[in-house]
């Protein structure tokens, strides 16, 4: 036995990154996942984005529709992949991996947040493909280092938020079949009740109200103002960050409470 006197906060941060490392090391042996992640945003931008920008049906003000939708598709693709993250947790439960981690002295919140961060880092492949396609499609991007840093952080945070949400659901439903059902039910409302592919201004008032309680709206807003050369923010980057970070903290706390139930 190794005696240790580590400050709880230092221990928590350290263990969070050990769990992130554990998850990311898997990528070194299998790059395929990163490639498959890139397909969906490519289809949405190249087909949906192109068709609707020609049609002119979407009123996005002075911002061309393809510019408007690019950050929305990035947020959407992050959501679509992260929301199914919980299936891994159920798989690990069916094996004995969850049990072994829970029998270790690792703080529960570190187990949850570490997994969330790893989903965050993985989602950077989607950011890369959306940027490449955006250049191809002539989207006017903001290349300032600060803006790029904001996009990087927002993408990691968004994937952390939605994958943690997914983990919470996995802890509640516990089986793959139920999880797939719930995942499908949640994805579309989150997507459509947001500003990802159309501005909230054209929504009916009830949906606009709902969209204000949807974290995806703030992710898209933050990405739009950071990614594009000229796009006003609806809420301000500060509020976007505040909503995303607070929601993530609440979800990590709930996840840390529920995660041990997977071993019972």
């Amino acid at each position, binding site marked *: 036995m190794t005696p240790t006197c580590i400050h709880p906060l230092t221990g928590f941060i350290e263990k969070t990154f050990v769990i992130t490392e554990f998850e990311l090391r898997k990528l070194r042996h299998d790059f395929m996942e990163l490639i498959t992640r890139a397909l969906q945003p490519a289809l949405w931008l190249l087909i949906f984005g192109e068709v609707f920008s020609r049609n002119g049906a979407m009123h996005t003000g002075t911002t061309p529709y393809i510019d408007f939708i690019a950050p929305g598709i990035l947020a959407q693709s992050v959501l679509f992949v992260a929301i199914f993250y919980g299936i891994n947790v159920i798989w690990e439960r069916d094996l004995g991996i969850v*049990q072994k981690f829970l029998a270790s002295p690792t703080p529960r919140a570190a187990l949850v947040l570490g997994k969330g961060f790893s989903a965050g880092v993985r989602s950077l492949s989607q950011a890369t493909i959306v940027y490449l396609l955006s250049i191809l499609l002539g989207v006017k991007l903001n290349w300032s280092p600060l803006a790029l840093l904001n996009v990087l952080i927002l993408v990691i945070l968004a994937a952390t938020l939605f994958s943690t949400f997914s983990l919470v659901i996995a802890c509640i439903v516990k089986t793959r079949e139920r999880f797939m059902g719930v995942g499908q039910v949640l994805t579309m409302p989150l997507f459509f009740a947001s500003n990802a592919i159309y501005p909230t201004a054209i929504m009916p008032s009830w949906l606009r109200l709902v969209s204000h309680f949807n974290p995806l709206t703030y992710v898209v807003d933050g990405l739009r103002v950071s990614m594009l050369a000229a796009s006003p923010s609806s809420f301000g980057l500060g509020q976007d960050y505040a909503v995303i970070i607070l929601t993530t903290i609440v979800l990590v706390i709930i996840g840390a409470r529920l995660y041990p139930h997977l071993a019972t």
Partner: protein
Amino acid sequence: MLQTVMSDPVLEIEHLTRRFGSFTAVNELTLSVNAGEIFGLLGSNGAGKTTTIKMLTTLLPPTSGEARVAGFSIRTRAVQVRRAIGYVPQAVSVDGSLTGYENLLIFAKLYDLPHHEQKDRIAQALEFMGLTADGGRLVGQYSGGMVRRLEIAQATLHRPPVLFLDEPTVGLDPIARDAVWKHLVDLRTAYGTTLVFTTHYLEEAEGHCDRIAIMHLGKLAALGSCKELEASFGGGHTLNEVFVHYAGVTLDSGGTFRDVSAERATAQRLG
């Protein structure tokens, strides 16, 4: 075997009880295990063995009663208990998409092994379990016996005084089972590790255990060394007959669908 066992208890269980609704999975279990002992928990499916192990490893809170592992209460000092134990669950608990070395490295970090010692300790653990040549290979390519030995290496990297194993040889062929047991016994000899394990294989209990406990319907039905239990029936009785007497003749009497499917899935993955 008993000469290596020290008399101070490393595991003390008092009236440990776990209910799921109206069903009592473990009922007033009281026993103690001495430091350095190899202790087998036997019983038919649904006897409460896995539930007991889950409570002792802090994965499941008891409904009532108490247990102390290495002097720490499982109810109030769970983190200290987790530092003092190693746990090898019945299902496969290493990640097939990482190498053996990486699986150990993550646990070396989680258990706060000093950074400069990590490499050496992992190398020692791999050598101890006969996996030195395979540390750099993906675990997905390991045989069932190798997976189990890696799991034991992972669970004992921090040199815990107590190692819990839930059916450590389920699904393994006899040669792989012998290899796993050789390494487990070596572990006790080298580090004085106390081994507490569940099994369905009576010959394993007979061959390796200092003492066994037979559980039936959540209760402790018998406790002692195999020889003592056989002798208590008069001469000429086998452990199998002792087991049938205490655990009931209906060997398939219990166990949920999930227990059975988990056991078969593990056997399939390791086999």
